[in-house]
């Protein structure tokens, strides 16, 4: 794999270490020489990161290192922020996400997203799940019902809510709400599922359920997950990217990163000796 070409700086002990698994189905998202600025301050430096298809890729690193920023670039959620500037490219199999003429709305339909806090809409459970289809203009009741059941089954929520699909989604528990959001994220059958610390607001039992779910969904979807929780990253991911101060420090298969990291900086962070 190619390496970043940025000039070395003092906080950086070495150039990015790459040792990802050999992709079985190829690359879903290829991030190349990606830089990002908020106004004048640079938040991401020369990210080079191929995300492999059908695998779970975790992004770890201390707060403020740019994991969420990078994740939100993948479906261009950062477009909402004024004074944002980027350089470099993020390629899917067909096109550059930041290329000219890209339909952001169409792009987001291919990328389901789950947020840190469960954010169901103030609608019924059914309406929440089929929301992506509704905004796409699909009104056929049969299709909506079929999609709703499929997505809720995939999100392991069907048995808990099948009798009260008409009830408000706000009446669900936090863990159920988050699984509902996952169901909503996969309802339009996207290629990639982006998860921004999906368990940080949940209790351990709900967290375990979500992690099981991620296991089940991997293979079918390419999943990129940002997490603060080392154990979680170790449990759910196939590849791990360690980020620090806006740079991707080490990116490789999970077993190697956690058991035998290539860089001391990574091992310091993983063992908790960091900073």
């Amino acid at each position, binding site marked *: 794999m190619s390496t970043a070409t940025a000039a070395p700086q003092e906080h950086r002990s070495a150039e990015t270490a790459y040792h990802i698994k050999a992709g079985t189905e190829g690359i879903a998202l290829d991030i190349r020489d990606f830089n990002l600025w908020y106004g004048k301050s640079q938040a991401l430096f020369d990210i080079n990161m191929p995300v492999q298809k059908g695998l779970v890729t975790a992004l770890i690193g201390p707060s403020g290192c740019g994991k969420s920023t990078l994740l939100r670039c993948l479906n261009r959620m950062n477009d909402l922020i004024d004074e944002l500037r980027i350089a470099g490219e993020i390629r899917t199999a067909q096109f550059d996400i930041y290329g000219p003429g890209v339909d952001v709305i169409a792009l987001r*339909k291919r990328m389901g997203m789950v*947020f840190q806090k469960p*954010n169901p809409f103030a609608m019924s459970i059914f309406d929440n799940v089929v929301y992506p289809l509704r905004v796409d203009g699909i009104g056929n009741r049969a299709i909506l019902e079929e999609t709703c059941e499929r997505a809720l089954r995939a999100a392991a929520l069907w048995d808990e809510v099948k009798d009260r699909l008409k009830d408000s989604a706000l009446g669900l528990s936090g863990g159920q709400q988050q699984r509902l959001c996952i169901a909503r994220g996969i309802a339009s059958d996207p290629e990639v599922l982006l998860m921004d610390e999906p368990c940080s607001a949940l209790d351990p039992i709900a967290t375990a359920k979500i992690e099981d779910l991620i296991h089940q969904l991997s293979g079918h979807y390419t999943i990129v997950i940002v997490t603060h929780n080392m154990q979680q990253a170790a449990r759910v991911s196939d590849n791990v990217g360690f980020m620090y101060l806006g740079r991707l420090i080490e990116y490789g298969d999970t077993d190697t990163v956690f058991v035998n990291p290539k860089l001391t900086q990574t091992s310091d962070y993983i063992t908790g000796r960091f900073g």
Partner: protein
Amino acid sequence: MHDTPLQPARGAAAQAPATSGRRLLRLTADLSATGEPALWALGGALAFGVILIAGFLFMISLNGIVTFWPKPIERVELASGQVIAGEPTRAGRYRVGQDVLAKLSGEQRAMVQAQDGYADRTLYKTANFDLYGDDFRWVSDYERKNVTAPNDFYLFERQQWGTFVGRIKHLAIDGKPAAFDYRLMQREQSAARKRFAQIRQIERGDIGAVNYQLDQQRLAIRKAVLRHGEDSPQAKAVAARAQSRIAELNKTFAGLQERLKEIRAHDQRYKATLEEVGGRTVDLELSQIVRFYPANELSMIDKIGIYLSRWWEFLSSEPREANTQGGVLPAIFGTVAMTLLMVVFVAPFGVITALYLREYARQGRLTSIVRISVNNLAGVPSIVYGVFGLGFFAYTLGGGIDALFYPERLPNPTFGTGGVLWASLTLALLTVPVVIVATEEALAAVPRSMREGSLACGASKWQTIRNVVLPKALPGIMTGMILAMARGAGEVAPLMLVGVVKLAPALPVDGFFPFLHLERSFMHLGFHIFDVGFQSRNSEAGKPMVFVTTLLLLALIVAMNAGAIYIRNRLKRKYSGPQF
């Protein structure tokens, strides 16, 4: 090692008793530290506000609630030999002037001097304005010789000339004289009131309809003339058709007049001869008596009955006697109609403006200026909006509408003068800043995570606003609407310029197409208060009505707000269940 920061404190506490003999650490906290004085100030401010509001409501309610309660009639013999009769309305103490004192007899002067130059006086509502030229009379205690409460004195509320106080001398039933009998008179009076209602119905309803159609025909001719020219065949055809219809209508009109004459002649045969305390008599048709009762012979049940019937009349009928008596139904209707119309105008306008300002406009200097200007608009005196409404809405817009659509009615204005449409638009303009500010805040309070959730599903910005943001902000927007409604319903000053009148000839809603007449002027409770209290011939007579009408206006605003709050709370429950 880790508890280093605690060391100095611990050391100081340990050393203090040894060095100074004083305890440095007190067992109770400092008064200023607990915030106790501030608490008293805050609580005191709240209590002061609550007392002010409660006192205000108490005063209005007390004065409003007792107004319709029937009072006894006193017959007073004065020192001068004159006799008066009336309801004692209020009493007070005053210092007797020197010039008055000089004219008094020795006995009276002694009486005043015994009270250090002061005297008590009572205000009697003597009524009988047609005979006395005044409704009220002050009687000082030194003038009073003898006070009785005679049982044969009655109080009459008349259709014209206000109240009458006196005895009933005799009746004329069907043209034949009859001895006075209370039951008989009650029966005949209620029959006479039915005749009166019938006359009203013919005058207002049937003849009104004929007049309306006559007017339509006349306008049709005029319109055809304006469009096709004076001598064109089209105009002539229209005129011919209209003329035949007019002849028909005139026949109907004559028939109605005939019928009216009949009923009136019949009505003339039922009369009562009333005698005031001084002996002068008045002949009165029974149909002219709205209500009468023997004021000093009433049981509690009778009094409650009169009290309730007066309230009912107040709420359900039209005003009479220059608004100082009768009901306020047109004013209630006008207030509600205008407020609801205002909401219809202000809601979409304010919400759309706020949506653009908050969601679409680029946040920069220009939006800040717009925002500040909107906030400042809320502080412009309301009469300024009235002037604008008259100049822009009524004269410019309304004048334009008249010239375009109603040329046949000119020079009589249709929309080119004050009316309920222009009044509600003016008030909408007055209240739109409130709605904009409230809506903006409600939109800003929608969590970012919800918008992002929707956008991440592939929704466009408009779909996000429509499906997620607006429903979530709706309770907050409703709060703004409630504030706007409360402000608008209580506003009077601008309305005086754009369509409120003392007495509206017709309600803005009736049976003639298009049923809702937005160009008509209307009555309003707020203006009614002003008019009765300060513009009537007799402000003393109007005073009780001022309080009753104020009470009603307050009740109406509370009711409208309660309705809006109920809707808002239902929306709140719907759109924000137990949040995670």
